[in-house]
Structure formats: C-alpha cells, structure tokens
C-alpha cells in the first residue's frame, strides 16, 4: 500500500468559484483530506443593512449569477413573510415556472457542460465539439430553451428583473407562453430523451463509491418540492422551515471562508440526490422512467450520482413547466398590482429548493421596511462538510491507484456536488448591532 501522498489541486476547474483540494497521507495514515475554500468574501451582510425591502431581492440576486433566480425567489418569500405581503395563485405558478427554467438551465450547465467532459475523457466541453458535436449542440439547445423561460417570465436569464415582493412587474402574454410550450414539447422533450440515452451509455464511467449520509431537502404533500414545503431529513423526518437553524447549525472551520453545517450527524447532503432520495415517488412520469433507465433508485448513496439525479430533474422540470403553462393558459392570464404596502414588520423566513439544494433567507425588518438583520444559509455551505467526509472515506479506498487517477476522482467528487462557491462564501450570517 502507498505510504505517502500529497495532493494540492489549486483552484479546481469546472466548478463555480475558487476552491482547492488538499489531501495528505503520511506513513500510511490519512492526515488531511478536505476542500479548501479560498473565495474572497464580499460581505453581503454589510451591504444589506439599512436597505429597503424592495431592494433585498435585487441585492441578494447578485450573490450568485448561476443561482440568481433561486436567491430572488427565496428572498421574496422571506420578505413577504416578514411584511405580510400576499401573492396570487398566478404569481406562485409563474414563480414555479421560473424555478423549472432556472433548474433546467443550471443542471444542464453542470451535468452536461462541466461534468460530462470527465465521463468522456476530455478537458472541457469545448474539446468535446469534435467527437461529441451533437451532444454539445443538444446541450446548448436545452440551455437556450431554459433561458427562454427565464427571459419570457423573468425578463432576463441572469438576475431576472420582473419578480418583486408581492408579484411580478409584468405578466407574460398568452402568445409568449404558447411559444414556450411549443419549444418545450417539440424540442426540449426529445432532447431530454436523447440526453437520458447518452447518460445511459456513460453510466459505467461513473466511479463506484458509496457513503451513506443524512439527506435533507424540502418536502410537501402534493408535489416534488421546489418552491415550498417543510424541511425533511432522511434521519428524522419533517420539521417546519422556521426550525432551519436546528437543521443547519453553522460553524467555522479554519480551511474555509465559507461556514460548514450539520444537522443530526457530522455532516449531511443537500441537492438533486437528496431531493431524489427523499421525494422520488413524487417525480412526474417521464422523469420516473428516466430514473429507471439511468439505474437511479432511492436511496442512492453514491454522491457521483448527483449529476444523474440532475438529469432526472431536468426531465421532471420540463414536464412540470408544460403542465404549469397549460394551467396558466386554461385560467387566463390576469394583470396584477404587485405594489403593496407592508402590513406588518419583523422577521420572515423563506426557503426554496435551488439547483444545489435547500436555501434559506431570514430577514428582520424595522417599521420603515429597512433590513436590520439578515441570515442566509447556502446549499454549498451545507454540503462542504459532507464533501470532506466523502474524501476521507474515498482516499483510503483508492490509495493504490496512480496519483493522476486519485486526483481525477477527487476532482470529480467535488464537481459532482456542483459546488457554488461564490454563493457559499458571499453570504455569511451575521447579527447587525443597531
């Protein structure tokens, strides 16, 4: 057995943000194995203090360009809860449609642009254009349609403009939604099938590694939860969202500018695989078939399969988006007056499932509608501890493989979690002292 090993991957590529992999084995003993987070903090908490309730979602959107929609939705829900603002059923449906689009966009980017190069042995998606031209074009098409959903409903794919507290500044027209539906039915669904087929062929390149852990996601009774629900742990079941601090327990570790989290064990996992493990029976039919074909069965303990769970969710979100458009069109679109005066002030907590897992925003407002206190708990921060524990189990299992192979498997492990390091670092919770 190998006695000594030193790995330091400086700035892991093909992930969002800046992180280093550090592994150290000395005289046969694993001394260190962790993901070092070196992203520069942006002190969003200081930025939010004193800002108006209408600006909260605009500002928190800028925590992360990739998850901008997720931050907006969660922020709006927290603000609405704190200030007693109501939203219509139409607004909820449009928000769910936006979430479907953003989830597809993010999952396609991650699983097809950033992860698939590993499965086919290429350094990047650009290098895939030669041998896998059709797959790349297909992925571009899928991203294109997903972005179109955000553009039509949100006004823009990155940092959408129309969602505000209480509703939307603009409601899409029926013709625009019909156009979206056509794209989803005629292009996205066949592309989903072809993608499932491609992934099916690549399944054998996914490393065979398992570590059972605690899986946490939202859960609700009537659908596969993204927009709303209770917090569900695979260990302890459901609790309401206002108990989120008990389910995250953030703490500082010296090797990371992002805080780590734990719930009932030393670490837990959030994201597509956690959602799948907790809620797979609620997936829509085509997504169920995709999961079957991709040999994904709950509970699945292989973190590398997170990328496969994302593909299954792409199928689900496409089906759901079509259903939502049908409902909106059947009901008829109505203009809304989103500008409402706050009915109360104080604290509000919002939670949604964003592509990388469960996200919480928690704001306290004063009587003037200005933020006095903010706390956001980011999915990637919640996953960091779990990544470290996976690495500690994985390294001894593959210690006798060539170093390049070990490095590759470690990089693939980090990538599988789809870490969004900007998010995890840019929002650290803090109490404002008034």
């Amino acid at each position: 057995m190998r006695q000594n090993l030193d790995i330091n991957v400086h700035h892991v590529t093909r992930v969002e943000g800046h992180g280093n992999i550090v592994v150290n084995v000395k005289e046969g003993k694993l001394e260190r194995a962790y993901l070092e987070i070196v992203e520069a903090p942006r002190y969003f908490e200081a930025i939010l203090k004193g800002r108006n309730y209408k600006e909260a979602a605009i500002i928190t959107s800028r925590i992360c360009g990739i998850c901008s929609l997720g931050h907006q939705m969660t922020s709006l829900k927290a603000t609405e809860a704190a200030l007693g603002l109501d939203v219509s059923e139409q607004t909820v449906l449009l928000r769910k449609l936006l979430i479907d689009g953003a989830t597809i966009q993010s999952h396609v980017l991650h699983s097809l642009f950033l992860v698939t190069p590993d499965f086919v042995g290429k350094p990047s998606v650009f290098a895939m254009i030669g041998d896998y031209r059709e797959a790349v074009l297909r992925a571009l098409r899928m991203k294109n349609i997903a972005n179109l959903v955000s553009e039509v409903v949100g006004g823009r794919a990155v940092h959408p403009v129309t969602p505000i507290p209480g509703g939307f500044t603009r409601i899409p027209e029926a013709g625009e939604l019909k156009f979206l539906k056509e794209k989803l039915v005629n292009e996205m669904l066949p592309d989903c099938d072809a993608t499932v087929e491609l992934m099916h062929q690549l399944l054998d390149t996914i490393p065979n590694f398992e570590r059972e852990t605690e899986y946490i996601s939202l859960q609700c009774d009537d659908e596969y939860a993204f927009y709303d629900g209770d917090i569900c742990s695979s260990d302890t079941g459901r609790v309401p969202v206002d108990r989120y601090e008990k389910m995250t327990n953030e703490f500082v570790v010296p090797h990371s500018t992002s805080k780590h989290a734990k719930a009932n064990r030393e670490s837990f996992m959030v994201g597509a695989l956690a959602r799948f493990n907790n809620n797979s029976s609620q997936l829509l039919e085509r997504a169920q078939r995709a999961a079957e074909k991709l040999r994904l069965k709950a509970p699945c303990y292989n973190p590398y399969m997170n990328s496969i769970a994302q593909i299954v969710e792409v199928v689900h979100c496409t089906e759901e988006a079509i259903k939502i458009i049908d409902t909106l069109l059947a009901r008829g679109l109505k203009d809304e007056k989103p500008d409402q005066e706050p009915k109360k002030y104080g604290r509000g907590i919002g939670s949604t499932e964003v592509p990388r897992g469960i996200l919480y925003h928690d704001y306290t407002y004063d009587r003037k509608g200005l933020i006095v206190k903010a706390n956001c708990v980011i999915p990637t921060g919640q996953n960091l501890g779990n990544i470290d524990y996976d690495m500690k189990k994985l390294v001894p299992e593959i210690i006798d493989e060539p170093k390049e192979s070990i490095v590759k498997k470690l990089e693939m492990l980090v990538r599988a979690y789809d870490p969004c390091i900007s998010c995890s670092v840019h929002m650290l919770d803090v109490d404002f002292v008034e």
Partner: protein
Amino acid sequence: MKKGGKDKIKVAFFDFTGCEGCQLNKLNLENDLLDILEHVEIVEFREAMDDKADEYDIAFVEGSITTPECVTRIHDIRRRSKVLVALGACATNGGINALKNIHDIDEVRERVYGKDKYLFPTIPVMPVHAIVKVDYKIYGCPMTQEEFVKVFKALVMGKKPQVPNYAVCVECKLRENECLLERGIFCLGPVTRAGCNARCPSFGQSCIGCRGLVDDVNQNASIEILKRYGYSLEEAVKRMNLFNTTEVKVEP
C-alpha cells in the same frame, strides 16, 4: 487584431470577486459561442475548462479587486495580456461589492468573522482600472450578451469598440415606455449609461443603475431631478450607491 503565436487569436477569461453571472452569460451565448470559436482559441477559462496558458491576445477580466491576492494576480494577468477588457459592473466600477466601502471595514470584518477577523485579508473594493490599465470596458450587471459579442467581434476584427455614453432615458423614450418617474416610481434612468436597451423599465422595473453613471454626469442636477419627484438627497444618494459607490461623489 494581430494574431499571437501560430494561428488563432488567444483569448482568456479570468474571474475575480463577483457572482460569475457574466461568465454564465458567456456560456449562455449558445450558438454564437460556436461561431466565435471558429476565429479564436480560448486558452484559459477556469469555470469551463482545465487548460492554462502563458500569454493572451485578449484577456477578459470579471469581478472586483478585493484582496491583496487579487492585486498580485491582476498585475500578472496584465503583464501577459496584449488587450485587457473589464467585464461587468464588478470589474468596471466595483459594482454592488463596493457598497462594502461605505461601512467601516474593521467593523464589517469583525461582524462576519469575529475573533478571526484578520484571517482573511480584505481591502476596500476597487474596479480593475484602479490597479492596472484597462483597454476597454463592457458594462452592466450582468453584462448583456449583445454588447459582449459586439465588443468581442470588434476586437477580433481589429476595430475599436464603441459603447454608448448617454442616459438610459434615451433608449427608454425610443421604446416608447411610459416614464416610471412620472408614474411615481424611483428610477435611475436619467444618470445611468445606456446600452441595455432600457431592459428593466421595459419590463416595468425601475432602472437600478447597474451600468454605471454616464461620463461627466451632472450629479447635482440629477439629484435635483430626483428631489423634484419627491426623493430626499439622502435617499437619492443611497439609491445611486447601489451599483455606483465608487462613482458617486455627492455626500449625503
């Protein structure tokens, strides 16, 4: 533009402190991206690929300068780049990050990291041009894909890219939108650099100033306008600060 080395123009992308939304907008170019790739070689783009290179014909830099390490790294990139383009609000004027600067820096650090406040070095947020020469700027939060493609194409063809230096109001009027200020909604259109085709006002959302202020803006006159519509000096400056802390000179 003169080609570096063997054949294609070597292009690299670098990210400093920001949300990476502008990087994402590049990947969102979809089919345009493949056309561009016919003419240039992307030699470094950490978010999307493993490769690294030594020299660049065009370096696109996203994000703000916020740590001593950023200062060192941007020097190194500048040294190896023929043309350097600042990409997006964080790089062109500090963007939303720079709001940090209006707070006491030691207090901010202590609130976030407590007793470990000196563990992670931080400096006041600066745009890229505060540290090294920037040849061109692509504005906005996020930058628009159209403007990125326009500037990119101009550079590849050896032309000097042109960006608007008039207010968003001009584009908003051309789109025949109803004025938001007239509707009683605060809007930074009168002072903000155009080039977005008045996207936010066209979707019923006020302009939040994400493309920076137009050059030589008469800030006092702008504030007078906003006051005329019922906003206090303090409020007006606070709103302008959102994306423009490093540019707003009027003290409330």
